[in-house]
């Protein structure tokens, strides 16, 4: 076998290599001769190993998959299985994956050939100054990736204990804090039970409690109870008017 002609790094992955073997041997993709293709595939892997080349884990996993399919095909069928009409061919999933992969492989060639901005087509390098003079409206499309990247860069220079605070738990409590404050917005008070709604999943309740504790600790809310066993009411510490009075003025930011 001419394994020497094949270099693994020329293939994107095991699916790519299998497609190559199928094409080279003019095999029917809908009826892959598993024994033959497995033998060829393993030969290539072995040849690579002999040459002491690193073989990516994906190639080895595919070898295992091929052997598994082969063994299933060899296994004598029980009567029960034979009578079962919808028993799937052990190769079916692999065939589906190969066909699907072929589609994206083909279309990436099409995309590569598509005229690309900055490679084949050019737009104007700089917009007209008239357009840039004024302040903007709306927002340019910005991705979560950019937000995350910005955060990562800020935190990179900071002690690690700060980094660890950014966890899911922290976030969901924060989320709940915000939700509670939103619920309270423009209201004088809120029934304690209303915070829990119909959703009484244990985790939810815990998160809500943690959020309330945090709000109390920050003195952003107060609790009141009219009578013993009566409804517990939640009050915002900062009323709507106060919050409005806090508005955006330059010196009200932060250290006021």
């Amino acid at each position, binding site marked *: 076998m001419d394994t020497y002609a094949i270099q693994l790094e020329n293939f994107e992955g095991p699916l790519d290599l299998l497609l190559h073997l199928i094409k080279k041997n003019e095999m029917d993709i809908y009826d892959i001769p598993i024994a033959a293709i497995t033998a060829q595939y393993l030969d290539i892997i072995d040849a690579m190993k002999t040459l002491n080349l690193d073989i990516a884990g994906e190639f080895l996993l595919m070898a295992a998959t091929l052997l598994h399919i082969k063994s299933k095909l060899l296994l004598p069928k029980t009567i029960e299985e034979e009578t079962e009409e919808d028993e799937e061919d052990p190769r079916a999933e692999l065939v589906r994956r190969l*066909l699907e992969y*072929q589609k994206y492989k083909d279309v990436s060639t*099409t995309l590569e050939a598509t*005229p690309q901005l900055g490679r084949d*087509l*050019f737009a104007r390098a700089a917009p007209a100054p*008239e357009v840039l003079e004024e302040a903007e409206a709306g927002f340019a499309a910005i991705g979560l*990736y950019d937000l*995350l*990247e910005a955060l990562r860069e800020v935190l990179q220079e900071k002690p690690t204990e700060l980094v660890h605070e950014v966890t899911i738990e922290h976030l969901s409590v924060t989320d709940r804090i915000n939700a509670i404050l939103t619920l309270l917005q423009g209201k004088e008070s809120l029934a304690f039970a209303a915070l829990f709604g119909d959703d009484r999943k244990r985790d939810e309740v815990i998160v809500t409690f943690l959020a309330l504790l945090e709000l109390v600790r920050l003195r952003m809310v107060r609790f009141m109870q009219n009578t013993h066993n009566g409804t517990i009411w939640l009050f915002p510490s900062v009323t709507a008017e106060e919050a409005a009075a806090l508005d955006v003025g330059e010196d009200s930011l932060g250290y006021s």
Partner: protein
Amino acid sequence: MWERTALDIHELTPLVEAMIFAADGPLQDERMAQALDLPVAEIRSAIAALEADYAAQPRGFFLQQVAGGYQLRTHPEYAEALRKLGRSRPFRFSRPALETLAIIAYRQPVTRAEIEYLRGVDSGSVLKTLLEKHLVRILGKKDVAGKPLIYGTSQDFLELFGLADLSSLPTLSEFSELAPDEDAIAMMDSLPLLVDE
């Protein structure tokens, strides 16, 4: 000056040309209509007139409908000469990048596990590169166990490939009836091939 006057099409067309020319990216007809306080239909007539005009004689650039707007772009046949002027960043997609981009473009919203199932290889670093180049964006999280991030293509992706919108993507070669989407995703669960993140 431009308010609600019945602007003659012969006056409007060069104005629309100036706006598209001056904008810092593809310009939507709605935005032009808003800036001029004119009905969108009038802007569209001017765009049509402009297109006819550009088609009537050889020009250095043409009007391309891209990423939901209009942009003037040079003809591909001038690429070589323009590269000599130093306008080209020598940028070429690697095969893994193009494959991954194609999968995301056609299958969005898509998770990393789905991409890797389709490609058969780890795609984390390719995905990161595509995110860094702003061709791919995080759409949010999928509402399944583990809440994996879901990815889609960006505005920049449309601009780069000169696509008006996602429906302008080239059609996939026909094999698709064999691998309906639901199946592929359902298969993920039973898949021994990839290590879960």
